[in-house]
């Protein structure tokens, strides 16, 4: 390797390292801003964890309030509390829930797998099926199959998630008795690993379908419009004129270009799926993060609220970065543009 090449390589490397470093600083800055905002929002709501515990215990006295407020650090000045909270964020300490007598990290880690399993499956299912249905509808625009899929996706989009969930339970659990109505596993029964996996999958069917339905409809609608738009482009006409087969046009030209808006929206919504999971997890008693968030908000469990909001914010930032990467992978013009 020549000296010029090494210098050039070294220059690129240092630019790359600098890029990463500045990106990391920006992300840390964003996280600190989010943590501050979380702190202010969480503490601005009326009521505090001490009063909630006192209210829900059916009895209270000054000692109980003092004990809880001291445990949460609420007896400290506001700015001291904020500084302590930011310091914990920087040291990756999510805090301790006095109400649950556990660290927030352990609470999160207990619930995260169930939520990731449910939302991940629902997300992939809705993305794959939505794209497929949208493609079928878009390529057959104006035909009966297009009308059918359009109506179905509109219907799915319009249905409230909790209602759809309840109706699925009524049909498949109460009437037909095919699927379990709630829970993630059959409790109190010895099972082999494979039986357990199958049992969890069995319990996942209804919640996954409920959660996937709305997103499936969105992606299908988006994909359909995008396909119709791209179909009009000159390069498609050129491909046709060159005698390229229809299937090749769809797979190599149409889909690749039409899927970009879907990726954008999917990236934006990936974080939102966790929000949607709150409802589904409630209806199906799914032991995930969604319910933990809901309860923590009602109980003003500050460390749990702040911890979850922070982790979710980081997840959303990560997903946005991932979306950008996928975008560049699918459409090389974007990375070229960003370089030039």
């Amino acid at each position, binding site marked *: 390797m020549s000296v010029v090449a090494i210098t050039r390589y070294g220059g690129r490397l240092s630019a790359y390292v600098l890029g990463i470093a500045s990106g990391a600083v920006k992300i840390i800055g964003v996280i600190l801003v989010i943590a501050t905002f979380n702190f202010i929002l969480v503490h601005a709501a009326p009521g505090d964890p001490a*009063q*909630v*515990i006192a209210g829900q215990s*059916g009895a209270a006295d000054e000692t109980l309030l003092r004990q809880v407020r001291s445990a949460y650090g609420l007896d400290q000045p506001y700015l001291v509390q904020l500084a302590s909270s930011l310091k914990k964020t920087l040291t990756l300490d999510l805090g301790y829930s006095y109400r649950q007598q556990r660290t927030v990290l352990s609470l999160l880690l207990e619930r995260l797998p169930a939520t990731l399993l449910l939302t991940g499956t629902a997300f992939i299912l809705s993305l794959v099926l939505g794209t497929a249905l949208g493609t079928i509808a878009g390529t057959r625009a104006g035909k009966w199959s297009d009308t059918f899929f359009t109506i179905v996706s509109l219907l799915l989009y319009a249905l409230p998630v909790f209602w759809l969930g309840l109706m699925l339970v009524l049909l498949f659990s109460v009437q037909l008795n095919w699927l379990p109505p*709630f*829970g993630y596993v059959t409790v*109190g029964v010895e099972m082999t690993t494979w039986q357990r996996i199958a049992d969890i999958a069995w319990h996942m069917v209804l919640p996954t379908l409920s959660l996937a339905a709305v997103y499936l409809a969105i992606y299908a609608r988006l994909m359909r419009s995008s396909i119709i738009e791209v179909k009009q482009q000159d390069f498609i006409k050129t491909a046709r004129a060159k005698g390229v087969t229809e299937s090749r046009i769809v797979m190599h030209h149409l889909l690749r270009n039409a899927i970009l808006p879907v990726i954008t929206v999917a990236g934006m919504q990936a974080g939102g799926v966790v929000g949607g999971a709150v409802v589904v997890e409630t209806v199906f*008693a799914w032991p995930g993060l969604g319910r933990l968030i809901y309860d923590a908000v009602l109980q003003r469990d500050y460390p749990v609220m702040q911890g979850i909001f922070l982790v979710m914010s980081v997840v959303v930032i990560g997903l946005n970065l991932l979306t950008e990467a996928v975008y560049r992978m699918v459409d090389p013009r974007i990375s070229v543009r960003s370089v030039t």
Partner: protein
Amino acid sequence: MGMNRREFGKLGLTAAMASVAGIPLGLQRAAGQTRGGTLNTITHPEPAMLVTAISQLQPTLTVGGKIYESLLRYDFDLKPIPGLAQSWSVSPDGLTYTFKLFPNITFHDGKPLTADDVIFSMTKVLPETHARARPIFTRIESAEAPDPLTVVFKLKSPFSPFLGAFDCTTAPIVPKHIYEGTDFKTNPANDKAIGCGPFKLKEWVRGSHIHLVKHEGYYRAGEPHIDEIIYRVIPDAAARSVALEQGTVKLTQWSDIEQYDVARLAKLPHLDMTTKGYEYFAPHLWLELNNRIAPMNDKRFRQAVMYAIDRNALLKRVYFGLGKIATGPISSKTRFYEKNVKQYEHSPDKAKALLDEMGLKPGADGKRITVPFLVTPSGELYRRVAEFLRQSLLRVGIDLQFEGTDVAGWIQKVSNWEYSMTTNLVYQLGDPAVGVSRSYISSNIRKGIMFSNTAGYSNPEADRLFEEAATATSDEKRQELYSAVQKIVVEDVPIAWLLEQDFPTFTDKKLKNVTTTAIGVHETFGAVRFE
């Protein structure tokens, strides 16, 4: 047994899908039947922890009641019956209480439970960790254990409700060898929840279920009858109803089932329903009136509110008959109830006359006064109660303006007296000195403290009678004093009492002995069995 085509088809499809999933068919249906001795039930909401000495949230008490036990139990009339103590006695001066424990009581870790554990729990742990028990057990002057099975408490002064405070929700016994010298609230053993009850914790998958199994060394021969209890976390009301209807769970309690679903489920042939087993708590539903501000500071206004509300209709239409009309501060389920008090029958005319007398004349639109009403954010039922009250009071010219908040905001506003009217449900806890007087005596007007005298009622005569009744040593004298104070308080109407609310306990017909004492589903369940 015959099977029609639809049922046969259903069975075939289920079997096919189950075999595809690789799950034994038996697992698909009611899990409670898979081992015969498994009780599947619900916890709603999920408890934060299971140590009842440290957390007194209702779900903790329901589940923890199987793990922890105390010296006594109470029958439906709130009379003490043996718990861990096989016998007890009270000295004539009402100062010395002696308990004899059953032999061979062990904790879940195998260590024996002795009088030292009882004394440690009552004098060290509960006064520090249990807000409800604190004012009771700090009355102990000395505690001694003449032998490992005998406990003697000497009180600073007579306090008759003392004997009523030894149920497993108020006075759970914790192991001294685990908690002594530690920070009780952060002791790592809290995760294991080691008690001496008939069931011990096997597994807790947060957000999913709590699995309790039989404590083999339980001191009562032959108990517990069932092998295990599984508390499922089911947050959604409709899902809970489905679970009960389908037989997936065999027991529901408290507010697991919404009021509007109770009548329908009670008719199902495989279920029994009872409202017994809540006598100790005796939930009292009332319309709380802030006595500090006008017009609630005028007795005539408060009486007018009582006359204006058709509580029969409230009971019938909103509560679907689940309860009884409350006549005053003490529930008819609680000791020393007095029924011969001033009656407030539904009479809009009397209400209007009282409002006229106050000078609150109706305007052109019929409204006399507008009063803010803080809607209790505890579900659909309270919203309905609020709507009912608005309609009732509007008929006599009192216009309620709804204000909304969430649970934390509501507790803060009520505790800090930042409300005019709201609804509240308060437990009586077995004795008026424990669960009733706290809402009426002026020494308990404590800003920021929920379940204190938040209405701000103050009557020196009522204060005196409540105080004397708490320390009187004979039941006859206590009845006399409580009867007198009830008459005074009902005349003053510091709070508009609405209903003695009932909660339904649903059980599968094959499940027996669930409700045997005044704390019902909070009881240990050692005697619960399947037929």
